[in-house]
């Protein structure tokens, strides 16, 4: 993530700037898909893979964790803990990648960004959503990893007496709060991802690229206070 404000807002993606000028988003759409030279890279393949795998894990974990408590009974335990292991691995990967290969300070935002005077790769709203999701996932995976000791798995010896009843209760409560907050966060995230004005972000998370025209429109919208908080 790049929260710094370059002199040219179009440089915010750190992409190859050698291509020629781009048209407006409308012109691009009228002409069909933008030429490859008019596209800038927004997400690396590894980050897109991480995003979609995490999304799949969160959806499976929500379904297996909450549906039985909403009256839909099925054998959920094995699918839940195996998916949980995958989410733990993905979270560790993301943490290591962020801490070692990326600049951690760029995940926060400045007052100038909040006012729309400075434009980074991600808007304030996107960063806030990331932080909310991050806290939720961290709470879920840490408590979920501890809860593995309550069930028999090939990975760990079951030990339900590792903690007292009160401590297990708090672990269950934090795990549950993470799960129900994920319901709201996923709903809001999917809604904003499907908004017509945010189509460029969804396409970028699918293809890794964004057109220069869409990028300019994005910067203009944020500076005009139209999109950075909505």
């Amino acid at each position, binding site marked *: 993530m790049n929260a710094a404000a370059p002199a040219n807002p179009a440089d915010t993606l750190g992409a190859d700037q050698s291509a020629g000028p781009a048209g407006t988003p409308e012109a691009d759409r009228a002409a069909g898909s933008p030429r490859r030279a008019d596209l800038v890279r927004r997400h690396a393949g590894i980050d897109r893979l991480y995003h979609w795998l995490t999304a799949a894990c969160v959806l499976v974990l929500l379904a297996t964790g*909450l549906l039985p*408590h*909403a009256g839909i009974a099925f054998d959920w335990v094995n699918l839940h803990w195996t998916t949980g292991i995958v989410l733990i691995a993905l979270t560790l990967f993301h943490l290591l990648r962020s801490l070692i290969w990326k600049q951690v300070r760029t995940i926060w935002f400045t007052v100038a960004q909040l006012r729309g005077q400075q434009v980074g790769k991600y808007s304030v709203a996107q960063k806030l959503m990331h932080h909310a999701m991050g806290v939720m996932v961290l709470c879920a995976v840490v408590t979920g990893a501890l809860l593995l000791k309550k069930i028999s798995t090939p990975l760990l010896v079951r030990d339900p007496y590792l903690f*007292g*009843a*009160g401590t297990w*209760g*708090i672990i*269950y*409560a934090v*795990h*549950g*709060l993470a799960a*129900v*907050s994920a*319901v*709201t966060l*996923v*709903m*809001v995230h999917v*809604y904003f991802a499907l908004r017509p004005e945010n189509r460029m972000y969804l396409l970028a998370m699918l293809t890794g690229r964004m057109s220069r025209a869409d990028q300019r429109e994005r910067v203009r919208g944020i500076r005009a206070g139209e999109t950075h908080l*909505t």
Partner: protein
Amino acid sequence: MSIFRMGHDPWGRPVIEGISWDLIWVALGLGVLVITGHLLYRLLRGARRE
């Protein structure tokens, strides 16, 4: 509606067992509320601009 499910430990002391599962519906409602609120905001803002 309570936020937590309460129980007792082997010594009879009250302990938290987890969250109340009613919170699933609260979370769903909150999501619907945010989405509806934003849709109304966009609708009203669009109408004001016209």
